[in-house]
């Protein structure tokens, strides 16, 4: 099953490589990974999406918790949560396609953030599924480049990941 695991880690050199190293060393899968500062300068927040059966996920969580740099961790997929990913996608567009892609971006609540006579850059946020759906909806429109941020997420309601 797909999981979204979010953690607060010490803003120390080498911390990120320990997390990433753990995944490769134990043959765990990383689908996406994001890391950025938080409101607390001593901490960064890292979110990873991974796939595995329950035993594997339990091991991943235990091993992440063992890392000295990982201060606190949550499996967002354990409860209700909000998941978002941002995508910037550059497509080659001409003639009738221009209106078609614009309409499609609109349907997906995307924005066209760059326009040239031959291309658009569409910006789209949402779940990874939604971003995938947009890509397949583009059909035979030629995609020049895709830049996705990977998944970030947060629990709904009162549950918080903080110290």
């Amino acid at each position, binding site marked *: 099953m797909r999981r979204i695991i979010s953690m607060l880690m010490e803003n120390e*050199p080498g911390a990120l*490589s320990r997390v990433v*190293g753990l995944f490769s*060393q134990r043959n765990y899968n990383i689908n996406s990974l994001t890391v950025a500062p938080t409101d607390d300068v001593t901490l960064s927040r890292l979110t990873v999406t991974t796939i595995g059966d329950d*035993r594997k996920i339990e091991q991943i969580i*235990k091993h992440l918790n063992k*890392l*000295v740099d*990982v201060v606190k961790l949550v499996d967002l997929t354990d409860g209700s949560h909000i998941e978002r990913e941002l995508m910037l996608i550059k497509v080659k567009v001409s003639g009738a396609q221009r209106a078609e892609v614009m309409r499609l971006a609109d349907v997906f609540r995307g924005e066209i953030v760059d326009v040239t006579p031959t291309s658009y850059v569409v910006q789209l946020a949402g779940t990874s599924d939604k971003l995938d759906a947009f890509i397949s909806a583009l059909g035979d429109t030629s995609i020049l480049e895709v830049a996705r941020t990977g998944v970030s997420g947060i629990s709904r309601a009162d549950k918080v990941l903080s110290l």
Partner: protein
Amino acid sequence: MLSGGDMLIRALHDEGVDLIFGYPGGTALHIYDAIFRQDKVEHILVRHEQGATHAADGYARATGRPGVVLVTSGPGATNTITGIATAYMDSIPMVVISGQVTRDAIGSDAFQETDMVGVSRPVVKHSFLVQSAADIPNIIKKAFYIATTGRPGPVVIDFPKDVTDPAEKFPYEYPETVKLRSYMPPQKGHTGQIKKAVEVLMSAKKPIIYAGGGVVQGEGAEELTKLTQTLGYPITNTLMGLGVYPATDKQFLGMLGMHGTYEANMAMHESDVILAVGARFDDRVTNSDISKFCPNATILHIDIDPASISKTVTAHVPIVGPVKAVLKEMNDQINASSDKVDADALKQWWENIEHWRQRNCLAVESAGELIKPQQAIQALYEVTNGDAYVTSDVGQHQMFAAQYYHFDKPRRWINSGGLGTMGFGLPAAMGVQLAYPDATVACVTGEGSIQMCIQELATCKQCELPIKIVNLNNEALGMVKQWQDMQYSGRHSHSTYADSLPDFVKLAEAYGHVGVRIEKLSELKEKLAEAFAMKDKLVFIDIAVDQNEHVYPMAVKGGAMSEMFLSKTERT
């Protein structure tokens, strides 16, 4: 005000370190100069950095105190990796200090630059790159705290050379305490879980206690022995746990696992309750096919590391906590309770076990004057009154030592169980002998393994370490050959080298030691006793043993624990 180099050595002293093992080189020279200018921390010069790590490791295993290593950058640092990995796999507390190129040169492919923090990452508990000399006392404090608490393990501290510059001085104060918000090892087990475990344990009909190296590291042997004797239950130890329960006691069934005794493996397989203490259901115990592992057993698992619980075998009652505290609480609960063990069931269970025991799976068949490797270990046991520190290398000789030397105390049996590192034995013995100068220290080895760190004979000379090297010389990589006999129709691909072995007696003499060769059974005990009587000399005892011997019992690959080969011709 102290320089970085002086601070490092001073902090080691303040941490209680009086002995370190190392090898100098460019980036460590400020530190070596700091060592030269003091007399509190003694430095042992090894002949290869791998030897330094194993020596520190042996010291740690024998004493329970962390082993400390100091090396230079680049090749000095990379040479420690095998030793760090060895310590990591067996959860041994160790602090490795490596030199590094100056801060401004990091990343420039400078002379002898290696990303030590990166290279060692998968085999350390944690690591530090010192960014500023002022941080040194704090980093040292944290490093020792992390290495020695929770599930112990090696910690690397990488010191850029300029951080240790004697010209730059800083105020020094060694912190008294350390607290890390992201690292809080458990101090006790969950009382409710312990209660649950005690209930299951007391109602068992076919119980067995399975104890591993965690009981050694967690200093829980006394509590474990008390628990075992109060309950009257059978106990087996892993290769790493030997000594946590006295091997000469009748409740002890011997080692379990791949080369465990028939009775230990049968009792595991037939048991209805297994109390696993500081053991991790390693594949050398479970025999890899988990679906066949102890089909009727309810599993109670005590371990300080949550990640060791339900990793391979699912624990029905997990208890995360230090073994000593948890076992003590179990003992207290049992004492306070009016529940009694099921005496009738237990009597029946012991009858079954005695029946398995009668198979006498470790019986040794004599072969005239030809020395069986098992007989060599039996003689060693007798000559040393069962009271030596025994280090070992890896191979058949290691298994024979584990099977035939009966360890009654923890920290006496010192071997590389998790990584299985050939070359471990001799340097580990140096660490033990330096920790206990008056103790009898025997290194049981093979002619293959001993050649992997043979250079340390020179260190032994320099430090006058009276280690007794017991070389079970079968003129082959015996364990490899055994597998080739059993699984590759006897095709001995690159496992023999009889025509190119050194003369070990002369070799020992060349290093300034005594060499003895033993070839006949009738002279085995006497010559061994003579060698051990040379109290102040290192004696290399080269024993010609049967070259065709296999280690038995041996688990049948992919089978249940009850499936074993008992000799070349018998199988359960």
